[in-house]
């Protein structure tokens, strides 16, 4: 039985060497070539003295070099850490420092991101795919010339494989550590749940640093399928994406709801035939049912699946449906999938039908990187019958009704913007460091409508973050706040509205009155 994630590549290369493994922007790579190229890059990493368990960064746009980097790092015994190229430099530098990575794999296309990073205080001593004076570099072309392969690795299933960073409420992002075992469980369970095979073409919409990329990067090679990667350009232009989706003969779709909502809003879907799609999978945030019922006719052969699961457990529940009656009814989270146990715990820590969802699963993370205190807070051990299980506290409130789980909301102030997790406290922590600002509240404003994006129809109904603040001198601090936050948090988390106030509105119970704040929100 397979115990390491990268063994998928050698197996697929043996069974169907000529099958395309990844495809992106008119470039493709077969399993045979992927196996060979990842051997070469893995050898290079070991020649650069990579030790087992060392973290290696990946700073890449959506490109077929990206899976080569992923699988080469795993083959070499390393742990891959995706970096978000669109994040502020301080955030990228934080992840590099936090993981103490010495090697970074990138590409010449990332020259604009690389020039923003200050390498002086970082431990990075080698770059693959860049040309810079400050650090030793090796080109992708040079990797392709390596002909002596002699890889040493002594990995076990319980060893870390990758670390995904996400927003943290204390002001710095936190790293979620997944092992070969948890990543492979995810690949196996998705393959089984959706009956995926080598003849599937799986669309990958998510960038590597977003946890939903695991279906394309891990499951697709696990079953020997073709992963059709949506390029950065296609992700930004729905009209181009509408055409791409037909031309790529995609059978499996997996993305945040916004991707399909934008596709429909572009008006371009009518021209194309999407009958090959057999699964429409979505996750990251709830999909409004009225949008789904309007999208369904475009995908006559597809079954839909609502996928839920924090990055800490990969996926944990699913709900499949082919039709949907009431456009105003919420779509359930459904049930936990195989190898997973879910319980609902009320505020008295007793099992209940309404409360926080706790998940124990083979797909669960090992813990947070370098943060045992946070790990122990988020994981609870409980006796269930004769077993003692480790449960991840999701922080999500759910209700069990008619044997189906329904999402109710968050226990904390985490929100989702375009599927990305944003901790409002993180924004507030940074905002408080601006001189003169003495109180801040971050909140989600009313959705921006289509016509306000100048008819561009690229981002209908997108949620955005607003900031209310008090300034001691009564001065407008919008410029300072925005400049600071653009340097500290990802662009989707930067507030678009700033309201200077004399006092923060509160309810009679003394709590922040979010309803009052929301009514301030203009649709700017």
């Amino acid at each position, binding site marked *: 039985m397979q115990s390491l994630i990268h063994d998928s590549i050698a197996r697929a290369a043996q069974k169907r060497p000529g099958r395309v493994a990844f495809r992106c922007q008119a470039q493709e790579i077969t399993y045979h070539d992927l196996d060979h190229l990842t051997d070469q890059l893995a050898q290079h990493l070991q020649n650069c003295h990579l030790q087992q368990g060392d973290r290696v960064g990946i700073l890449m746009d959506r490109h077929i070099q990206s899976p080569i980097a992923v699988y080469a790092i795993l083959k070499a015994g390393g742990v891959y850490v995706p970096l*978000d*190229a669109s994040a502020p430099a301080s955030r990228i530098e934080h992840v590099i420092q936090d993981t103490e990575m010495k090697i970074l794999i990138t590409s010449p296309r990332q020259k604009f991101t690389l020039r923003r990073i200050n390498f002086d205080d970082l431990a990075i001593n080698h770059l693959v795919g860049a040309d810079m004076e400050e650090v030793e570099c090796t080109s992708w072309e040079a990797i392709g010339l390596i002909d002596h392969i002699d890889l040493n690795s002594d990995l076990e299933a319980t060893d870390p494989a990758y670390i995904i960073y996400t927003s943290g409420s204390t002001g710095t992002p936190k790293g979620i550590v997944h092992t070969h075992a948890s990543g492979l469980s995810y690949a196996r369970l998705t393959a089984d749940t959706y009956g995926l095979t080598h003849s599937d073409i799986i669309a990958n919409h998510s960038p590597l640093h977003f946890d939903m990329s695991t279906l394309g990067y891990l499951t697709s090679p696990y079953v020997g399928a073709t992963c059709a990667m949506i390029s950065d350009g296609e992700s930004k232009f729905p009209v181009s994406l509408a055409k791409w989706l037909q031309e790529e003969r995609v059978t499996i779709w997996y993305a945040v709801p916004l991707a399909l909502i934008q596709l429909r809003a572009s008006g371009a879907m009518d021209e194309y035939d999407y009958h090959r799609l057999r699964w429409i999978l979505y996750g990251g945030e709830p999909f409004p049912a009225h949008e789904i019922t309007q999208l369904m006719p475009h995908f006559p052969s597809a079954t839909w699946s609502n996928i839920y699961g924090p990055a800490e457990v990969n996926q944990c529940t699913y709900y499949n449906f082919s039709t949907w009656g009431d456009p105003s009814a919420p779509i359930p989270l459904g049930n936990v999938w195989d190898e997973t146990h879910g319980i609902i715990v009320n505020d008295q820590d007793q099992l209940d039908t309404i409360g926080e969802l706790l998940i124990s699963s083979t797909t669960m993370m090992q813990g947070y990187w370098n943060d045992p205190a946070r790990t122990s807070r988020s994981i609870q051990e409980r006796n269930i019958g004769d077993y003692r299980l480790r449960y991840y506290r999701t922080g999500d409130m759910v209700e069990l009704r008619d044997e189906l789980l329904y999402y109710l909301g968050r226990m904390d102030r985490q929100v989702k913007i375009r599927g990305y997790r944003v901790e409002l406290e993180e924004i507030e922590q940074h905002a408080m460091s601006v001189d003169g600002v003495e109180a801040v509240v971050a909140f989600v404003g009313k959705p921006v409508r289509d016509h306000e994006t100048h008819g561009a129809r690229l981002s209908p109904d997108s949620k955005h973050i607003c900031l209310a603040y008090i300034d001691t001198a009564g001065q407008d601090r919008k410029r300072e706040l925005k400049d600071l936050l653009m340097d500290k948090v990802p662009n989707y988390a930067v507030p678009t509205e700033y309201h200077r106030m004399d006092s923060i509105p509160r309810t009679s119970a003394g709590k922040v009155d979010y309803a009052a704040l929301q009514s301030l929100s203009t649709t700017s």
Partner: protein
Amino acid sequence: MNATLLIDYLKQEILHDETIDISSSDNLLASGLVDSMGIVRYISWISERWNIEIPPQDMTIEHFITIDAIVAYLESRGAL
């Protein structure tokens, strides 16, 4: 001239970074440069600056991937 105008606006108003060295053949869409909201603002400005309506079906990768592509698109629309 038009390429310079396009690059200057991109640097000043979209990227807020005047020191960045962008050429007319650089891929503007690869992650790490202009995000999706930035693209919307940029297209909106182009539409006003050259006084043309850019219909949804024209909002494609081919027309906006580089400054050169944008210039070619504006020429094809008779705006230059």
